[in-house]
């Protein structure tokens, strides 16, 4: 992951990847990624996330050595677009080892996230 992408993902994840304007956070959810430490292979394939994510309430629900995935949904008023921000990280005690940051701008994960909401209800 490039330094700029990592920096942006860490400090300005609410900046639109297209127009760089500030986006509005509409939803967020923490997931457990079904991969153990050092077995994570970077991929931005949405099917991979759809098949391997498990909804959790808090970070302490994720066992040691298992990756986590924070998903935030943004609305960019400039582009009139829903943007899904996916951050893959390894929770290690009180720290996080950042692995990847992806933006999905074409609704690749929308169905999956809707299903997760339904599951909650």
């Amino acid at each position, binding site marked *: 992951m490039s330094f700029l992408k990592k920096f942006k993902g860490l400090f300005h994840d609410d900046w639109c990847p297209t127009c760089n304007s500030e986006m509005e956070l509409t939803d967020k959810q923490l997931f457990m990624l079904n991969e153990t430490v050092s077995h994570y292979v970077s991929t931005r394939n949405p099917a991979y996330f759809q098949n391997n994510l498990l909804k959790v309430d808090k970070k302490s629900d994720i*066992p*040691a050595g298992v990756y986590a995935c924070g998903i935030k949904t943004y609305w960019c008023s400039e582009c009139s677009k829903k943007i899904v921000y996916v951050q893959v990280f390894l929770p*290690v005690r009180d720290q996080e080892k950042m692995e990847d940051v992806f933006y999905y701008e074409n609704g690749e994960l929308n169905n999956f996230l809707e299903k997760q909401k339904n599951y909650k209800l």
Partner: protein
Amino acid sequence: MENERIKKINWLYLGGYIILPILVIVLGIALTVWHVFPDNGLGTILFAIFLFGPVVFWSVGGSFIFKRQNKKMEQELDRENFHRDHTFNGKGVEVIVDTKDKKVALKFFWNPFEKFIIDAKKVENAYVDTGACGSGFMEGSSRVSFLFTVDGIKIRVNTFTSNQRFRMDSNYILDGISKADMMVNILNEASKDNKKK
């Protein structure tokens, strides 16, 4: 070897690993001195083999034997219906945990021809050693490991080692701590369940 006392070092193997290559070097020198090798390029090549062969063996031979024996152990465990649910190779020790039957298999670098299968209940006092030293922004580590005791014998399994010191928030250290935390949790879970029975 199920439930036998753990032997981390096979002194015969360790002694042989050190002394046999020295004997080969001495033999190479002796054969040169006694003019057994021909006085041409072939003689030089033979002498080099006798001299550098042992050095190569010291460098990679141990790892090669350990890897081969680990593979052999894994095949044997599969034949014995040992469920290899979690395997961790810490270079000096291979630890395999069967969470279903609550057993732990161990193989040591300096005793590669013996495998040890123990009841998980024998595993005690498992903990993580982050190796952290220094304070403030100088805090760092060059080794992360997890340790546990079996029959009073302390076993250390490294999850990260380096000849350099890294900050505690570096990716290498975090990876090492994560692996160690995971293995300690697995060992504690296996031994706890077994103790309940």
